[in-house]
Every structure is written in structure tokens, then in C-alpha cells.
């Protein structure tokens, strides 16, 4: 039995049966990271000592009969989530030496379950990007073809999960950053409802949009992870107090009679034909499982990119003001005075995409432009939310593509920020509204690159998404998450 081939759920079973031990499994993963990570660049920091120590603890815990579903399961954590004693860079050189004095709420929870952390995964700097090319630690490579992007910004978490460098991972999603890389890497990714998962210790990019969630090989593993990640945290005032269901019961019911909507604004001219064919085939599979498929309309979709790229940079420009060289960031050693220290430390520390977004955000919030840009965008955000509220009166779940194209080649779009922003059109409205979204593999291109299906639900309807995703995964031929990328 090759330990790296097992899903998180399967690991729990073999641990319980005594067929494998967490130490054996962690060693197998560390060996594979050593062999494969130099080509994929999924990890910024690997923590072998902590992982092995945790594995020994997990063995004792299992022997003592206190095993939980994630005990001894090796995970990778996106490097925007604080880990006590392990540096947390956010993919930025400004935080390249930052060692947090505390764990993010969800990291603490995972550790309390006995989950093991193999390391911190690469991402676009401060989670700003759709291709993982904007990392101070170099681009991540798609495990299915190393010349291609893995998607972003949680590209490291998605690539690590697909390449068998971890059993499962945690990512974050502000405009598609869990769903899009999961789709591009052929794995499962869930962006929960805004407020479902605590943001305490998640380094803020756009606070009204950010959510952390699981990236896994199977839908069942996403449910297992959600059972631990979801829940109220008094330290995050936006964290929802509503009760957390057992997500692993989500697929007890089959899909008979479930109403699936196809948003006509997502199937328009220019959508890559291979992507469209894969998504339409997936919808046929859902219909075959008893789903009732109908067209819905999300009329403000075409304004989503413009509204999002005002709101998100506005919040980012404010959030990133804290990187000033005073308390925990790199400081320019030659600074002559305080003002100069701010300027030089920030300019040396931020990469081009982060600089661009701080500039956009500062501009749209500045005197004279606030109403025309920021206020207008927040009004359009209301219209986007209403689109979803109206659609979910008629359907239980919406099925659509994740991105208009399959992964593109590394370097292909770097000089064209606007085109890169436009590629987020199918994911970012979900963050603007705050509803949850799940991506599951649904096909591959003629050249072998994964294509994902995106499922959207109403507020706190993660169970509906997992139910549809699980039955689709069981019925569909494209559970890529269970196959090893051929190049690796």
C-alpha cells in the first residue's frame, strides 16, 4: 500500500486498523516532497521536524483510542495562515522573515485534531493573483504539465494536493483562489460561505471577501476538513454563530429532484469549447442522477470584474498599510527618517502586482473618486447579491465553469494585468455575494490539463454543494484527484 495514494478518509481507516502508522506516512510524504517539490515549487517552507514530532504524538493518540478523523493526516497550509513558530511569508519578500507568535484559529483547530502540518504552501503574493506567478518565491508549476500555471492564488495548496505532496491542504479564496487552482490542478476545492470559517490569523487581503477552505482529492475529504474548519470564533467578529452540521452526512440523500441552474451569462461566446463541453457533459451526468436542470440568469455577471477590482484593491490598500517596517516586516536598513523608512521598506518589499493593487485601491478611495468608484462598486455588489438571491429562489444549486479557459502557459499573461483580472469573471461574484462555491474535476483537455466544474449554493448551503459534488464524483469518469500526474 503506497501511503501517498490514500485520501484523508482512507488514512483514518488504515490508522484505525493498524495497517500504517502516521510516522510511516509522514516519512513517505517528506521523501516525495524532497523528490518532487523542486520541480513543482508548491512549498515555500517544509517543516519535517514538526511533522515527525506530530506523527509520534498522533501514534500515541491512536494507540490510546483518541483518534479523530484527521489524526495523523499530513496537511499543507497556504502561507497566508499564521503558524506559531513557523515563518509565514504570504509569498512576499516583505514578510520573508516573519515568524508569527500565534496560530490562526483554524490551524489551532487542525493541530488539536492531531492533523500534521508538512509545511507552508506557495501562493501569489498576499493572495493577489490568478496564476501563482506573483510569488516572491517563484511560480508554482501545474503538476499535470510543468510548463503551465496551477492557477492561483492557492496554487501551491492545489498543486501539492494534486502532486501527492500532502493528503489535503488549506487554501484561501478572495475572488476564486481556492476554486480556480483546484479546477486547474484536478482536485476538489471548497470556498465556504463568508463567515463560516474564522479569519483569525488569516493575513488579510480583502476582509469582506476572504474565506479559508479545504483543497482535497475527494469530496468526502473536503467534508472531513470542513467539520474541523467551520465554526464560530469569538476572535473573529464576522464569524457566523450558526450551528455546524456534520458535513460527512451531506450526501446521504441522492440527487432526485434537486434543481440545478445553468446561468446563461456563464455560457457565452468566447468560453473555451473544451471547458464548455466538459461542464455541459457534467450537467448531463447530474441530470442522469435525477437532477432537474433549468436555465437561470445572473444578469450582473458582466459587471463583476469591474466592481470586484475596485472593492478588493480598496480593502487591500487599507489592510496592507500595516506593513510599514516598524513591528514585523523587513525594514530598509539605510532609512534616514521615519517617512523614508515607510517608503523604502514598502517599495522594496512589495512585488509589482501588490503595488498595482495598492495603487488602484488608494486611488478609488481617495478624495474626489470615492463616490464614483468605491461607493458605486459597493452598490453594484448589492445587485450581484440580489442576482444570486433571485436565482436561488428557483434552484438549489448553480452549475457553471470555474474559469473561461483551461490553465495557460507560465509567463503568457504576465504583462497584461487586465486580461488576468478578466479571467476571474466566473469566480469573483461568488465572493462579492458571500455565497459558497465548490469545484470538482469534470474533464480534461486534449492535452491532458484538468477542467473543473463549479457548483454554487445559497448562504450556508455547503451541504447541498457537497451532496451534489459527491454524487457527481461517484458517477463521473473524471475523478482526477485520484490519479497521479504522469510527469511526476
Amino acid at each position, binding site marked *: 500500500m503506497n501511503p501517498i495514494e490514500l485520501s484523508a478518509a482512507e488514512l483514518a481507516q488504515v490508522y484505525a486498523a493498524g495497517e500504517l502508522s502516521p510516522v510511516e506516512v509522514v516519512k513517505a510524504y517528506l521523501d516525495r516532497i524532497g523528490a518532487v517539490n523542486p520541480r513543482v515549487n508548491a512549498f515555500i517552507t517544509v517543516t519535517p521536524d514538526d511533522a515527525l514530532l506530530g506523527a509520534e504524538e498522533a501514534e500515541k493518540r491512536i494507540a490510546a483510542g483518541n483518534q479523530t478523523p484527521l489524526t495523523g493526516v499530513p496537511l499543507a497550509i497556504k502561507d497566508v495562515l499564521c503558524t506559531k513558530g513557523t515563518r509565514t511569508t504570504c509569498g512576499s519578500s516583505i514578510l520573508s522573515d516573519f515568524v508569527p507568535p500565534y496560530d490562526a484559529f483554524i490551524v489551532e483547530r487542525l493541530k488539536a485534531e492531531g492533523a500534521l502540518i508538512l509545511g507552508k504552501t506557495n501562493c501569489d503574493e498576499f493572495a493577489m493573483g490568478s496564476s501563482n506567478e506573483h510569488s516572491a518565491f517563484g511560480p508554482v508549476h501545474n503538476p499535470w504539465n510543468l510548463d503551465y500555471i496551477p492557477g492561483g492564488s492557492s496554487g501551491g495548496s492545489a498543486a501539492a494536493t494534486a502532486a501527492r505532496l500532502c493528503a489535503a491542504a488549506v487554501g484561501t479564496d478572495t475572488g476564486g483562489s481556492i476554486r480556480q487552482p483546484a479546477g486547474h490542478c484536478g482536485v476538489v476545492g471548497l470556498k465556504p460561505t463568508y463567515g463560516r470559517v474564522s479569519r483569525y490569523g488569516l493575513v488579510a487581503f480583502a476582509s469582506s*471577501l476572504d474565506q479559508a477552505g479545504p483543497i482535497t482529492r475527494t469530496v468526502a475529504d473536503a467534508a472531513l476538513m470542513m467539520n474541523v474548519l467551520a465554526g464560530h470564533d*469569538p476572535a473573529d467578529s464576522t464569524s457566523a454563530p450558526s450551528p455546524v452540521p456534520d458535513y460527512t452526512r451531506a450526501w446521504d440523500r441522492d440527487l432526485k429532484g434537486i434543481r440545478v441552474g445553468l446561468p446563461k451569462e456563464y455560457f457565452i461566446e468566447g468560453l473555451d469549447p473544451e471547458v464548455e463541453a466538459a461542464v455541459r457533459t457534467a450537467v448531463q451526468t447530474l441530470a442522469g442522477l435525477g437532477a432537474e436542470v433549468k436555465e437561470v440568469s445572473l444578469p450582473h455577471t458582466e459587471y463583476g470584474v469591474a466592481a470586484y477590482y475596485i472593492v478588493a484593491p480598496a480593502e487591500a490598500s487599507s489592510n496592507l498599510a500595516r506593513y510599514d517596517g516598524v513591528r514585523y516586516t523587513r525594514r530598509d536598513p539605510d532609512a534616514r527618517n521615519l517617512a523614508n523608512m515607510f517608503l523604502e521598506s514598502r517599495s522594496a518589499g512589495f512585488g509589482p502586482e501588490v503595488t*498595482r493593487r495598492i495603487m488602484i485601491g488608494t486611488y478609488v478611495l481617495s478624495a474626489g473618486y470615492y463616490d464614483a468608484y468605491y461607493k458605486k462598486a459597493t452598490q453594484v455588489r448589492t445587485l450581484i447579491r440580489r442576482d444570486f438571491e433571485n436565482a436561488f429562489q428557483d434552484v438549489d444549486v448553480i452549475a457553471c465553469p470555474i474559469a473561461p479557459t483551461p490553465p495557460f502557459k507560465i509567463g503568457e499573461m504576465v504583462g497584461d494585468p487586465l486580461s488576468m483580472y478578466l479571467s476571474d469573471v466566473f469566480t469573483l461574484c461568488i465572493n462579492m455575494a458571500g455565497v459558497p462555491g465548490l469545484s470538482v474535476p469534470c474533464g480534461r483537455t486534449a492535452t491532458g490539463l484538468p477542467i473543473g466544474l463549479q457548483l454554487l449554493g445559497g448562504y450556508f448551503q455547503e451541504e447541498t454543494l457537497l451532496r451534489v459534488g459527491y454524487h457527481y464524483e461517484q458517477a463521473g469518469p473524471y475523478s482526477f484527484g485520484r490519479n497521479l500526474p504522469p510527469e511526476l
Partner: protein
Amino acid sequence: MDTISPALPKPRAYATQISHGTGWSAFAAGRREISFFRKVFSMKLDQREVRHVADLARLSVTDDEAAALTDQLNRILGYMDRLAELDTRDIQPMAHALTLDTPFREDRAQASLDPEDALANAPDRDANFFRVPRVI
């Protein structure tokens, strides 16, 4: 397009480039070509204003960076103009996804970060203070 040239390309040349591109840029161009180009060519801000915004954001930019940013921000902000097509006079702004009330808690002292931990990442310190260069 691999690079943003300092001078904006002629509309026709740009359109040809985009419609021959693959994937998303073709998609975007096809739908929005006409209004897109109208917007792109309305200049929003010049280099002097870009430098002012950089100053507000406490960023220092070189001449080359200012030129590239001016070009990119004009394209991006020009694209935002499409929001003006929507009548939002009676629409409430939405700053947040959830309509939670402000949660209150009891005003009770709790354990906080140890000063040594809080100062551990400081670039410079003096006793229990963060030390910075001379202010005045």
C-alpha cells in the same frame, strides 16, 4: 501582449492582437470591443497623479515604474467605467456579505501576547518598545 508599451497601441492593432489571442483575452475582446476601446482611450490619470497616489500609499516609484503604472492604471480604471451603465440611485451600498449585528462581549481582562513574543519580529527594539528612525 507581453509588455505594456509606453504609448497605447492604435485600436485596430490592439484589436487584431487580442482577437488572434487564445482563451480569455479573445473572449473579453469579442464581447466588449467597442466600449472597451472607447474607455481605454479616455485617460484617467497622468504620471504626476500616479506619483501623488503612490505618495498617499507610502510607496516610492521609479520613473519607469511610474510610466508603466500610469499606462496600466488607465487601462484598468477605464474598464471600470462600465459600472456607469448601471442605474444605482436607489441601491444600498453593500460593504459586507453578512448582516450581522456588531457582536459585543463582556469587558473582562484576558491573557494577551507576551511582550517578548510581540517584539520578536521587530526590526529594531529598545527594551519593550519598537524603535524607529528619528521622526523630527
